[in-house]
């Protein structure tokens, strides 16, 4: 439905007459009643406006203010200037959590992209109904609740009894301590995360189906190899979808919480994992709701926000070099 609509809109916008034309950007059906229409518009979006003020804009300002205070909910708020931010710089656990989150993101995002692309290519290579069946299979893990994924993989990754190491053993490879060895805890989490890459596969598969086949036919006549076709037709044509998933997956990876919290935090006490699996948002959550350092946690949240904005800006800038948009630009 998505692309067809968009294409329709494009087509419509090229038509000269606005009287008969179907909806376009800026179009409004009740233009004969311009005055009342204005108020009706505001009325209809007012739920969003209220929600935005109460649950987004207000809290943003509040958390910015909180980040300059010390506040534990019980005692009155105390303004302490930049102290929280100075403390951030010296907090070794914070540094560790930031490194953990970057490490995970740096592994998960490229691996998920490449694997999802490979799977989507396989799907595109078999015919429709069969492809739909496999697509369903790949997507099932993505609807599995995070807590279930965490509990399940705590067991699958278990060094002694887990499915993964049993499998490796069968191949004659001694498996590492995925849940116990500080070096292997994060790779274990990455493996778990790759199980849920079905959403990305679905997006890539849909993008692949929108590549005009005339391009492949033309290149085939020119004698292009499969790799050349992939490199010079497929990749550029789906670069928009790849770019989208890169941004979304990066932002989500930096905020990974549920699965890892389920595995190693709460009442699941594990000495090794409490450092090696301490991801940024988990540390933030603990500061806020386990130690009640609301001010400090707010400062952490703003640091995360700034990091995400910077990374997204970098990705946007880089995208101009490699993302291909149909119709120029």
């Amino acid at each position, binding site marked *: 439905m998505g692309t067809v609509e968009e294409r329709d809109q494009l087509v419509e916008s090229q038509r000269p007459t606005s009287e008969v034309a179907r909806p376009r950007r800026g179009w409004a059906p009740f233009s004969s009643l311009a005055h009342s229409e204005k108020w009706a518009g505001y009325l209809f979006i007012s739920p969003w406006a209220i929600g935005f003020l*109460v649950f987004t804009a207000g809290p943003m300002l509040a958390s910015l203010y909180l980040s300059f205070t010390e506040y534990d909910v019980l005692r009155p708020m105390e303004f302490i200037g930049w102290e929280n931010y100075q403390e951030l710089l010296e907090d070794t656990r914070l540094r560790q959590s930031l490194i953990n989150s970057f490490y995970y993101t740096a592994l998960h995002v490229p691996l998920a992209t490449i694997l999802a692309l490979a799977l989507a290519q396989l799907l595109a290579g078999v015919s429709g109904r069969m492809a739909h069946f496999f697509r369903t299979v790949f997507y099932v893990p993505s609807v599995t609740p995070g807590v279930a994924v965490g509990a399940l993989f705590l067991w699958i990754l278990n060094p002694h009894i887990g499915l993964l190491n049993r499998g490796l053993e069968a191949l004659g490879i001694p498996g590492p301590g995925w849940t116990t060895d500080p070096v292997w805890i994060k790779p274990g989490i990455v493996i778990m995360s790759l199980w849920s890459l079905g959403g990305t596969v679905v997006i890539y598969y849909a993008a692949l189906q929108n590549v005009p086949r005339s391009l492949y036919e033309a290149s085939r006549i020119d004698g292009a190899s499969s790799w050349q076709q992939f490199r010079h037709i497929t990749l550029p044509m789906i670069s928009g*979808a790849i770019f989208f998933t890169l941004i979304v997956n990066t932002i989500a990876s930096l905020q990974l919480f549920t699965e890892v919290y389920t595995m190693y935090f709460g009442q*699941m006490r594990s000495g090794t994992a409490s450092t090696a699996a301490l991801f940024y948002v988990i540390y933030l959550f603990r500061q806020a709701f386990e130690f009640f350092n609301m001010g400090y946690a707010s400062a952490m949240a703003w640091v995360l926000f700034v990091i995400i904005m910077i990374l997204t800006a970098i990705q946007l800038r880089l995208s101009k070099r490699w993302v291909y948009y149909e119709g120029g630009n």
Partner: protein
Amino acid sequence: MATTTGTLREVERSTPDAGSRVAFYVKRTVFVVLLLICTVIFLAPLVWLISASLKVRSEVFSFNFIPDPVAWENYVRVWNAAPLFTWLKNSVIVGVLAAGAVTLSSSLIAFGFSSFRFPGRNFLFGLVLATMMLPGAVTMIPVFLIWDRLGQINTLTPLWASNLFGSAFYIFLLRQFYLTLPRELYEAARVDGANYFQIWGRIAAPLPRTAMIVVFIFELKASWTDLVKPLIYLQNNALFTMPRGIKAILDQFGQGGEMQWEVVMAATVILTIPMIIIFFLGQRYFIEGLTTTGMKG
């Protein structure tokens, strides 16, 4: 619609020589085999989960996929050990309220953004989109303090009530739909004397059936799987939703000398199954929603 699958078929048809036809079938077979291997890898954890949940304690670490004997009593034990029915009920209440609220409010808001002209519309819609970028952590603490002041900690309200104000992604999705509706549709109703709200209620809200189901089902999934809000807002065991409850069961049974994995796995199955059923019933909506997401980006 042009598909790469089509490409292959086309190529096959247009090349008469037997060599390339053989190459085509070999390639296809290799692809199917690879996909089957991937299927095993993707489904093994779930199959193993269900199998383990039906094994007796002494068998639970064995490598057999078929439980022998079949230990249905694991489910009885977990059902007796924890208020699972209450948790399921809470999850259903929260899920339906959250999904229902967000579907109706987002539809209303999207209709407002797409069907009326008013000063600042584009700017405000830009703001809607911008909020999608914002990490939840930034607003999490002040929003908690708001619910705290309103005396709503340890109630289910914070888990769904903010959905009454719409959600950026869904507003975007529904607005895309409304932009394609022909104006005649509304004008007929105007002639009949319907006001704007009636036009929304009678025409605009029910019309994008698929898009509305996509929104409902996505939010139902988000709500059913959420652990963060229950962790923040619920302390009382009787108020837990399923994910929070299963986390509690894992904390209780999944560690120390007293590991009872078969119980944990049974609980995990009960958490997972409803989602998988919903997925199979509403599969095309999941796919449609996701595809739309990717394409708009």
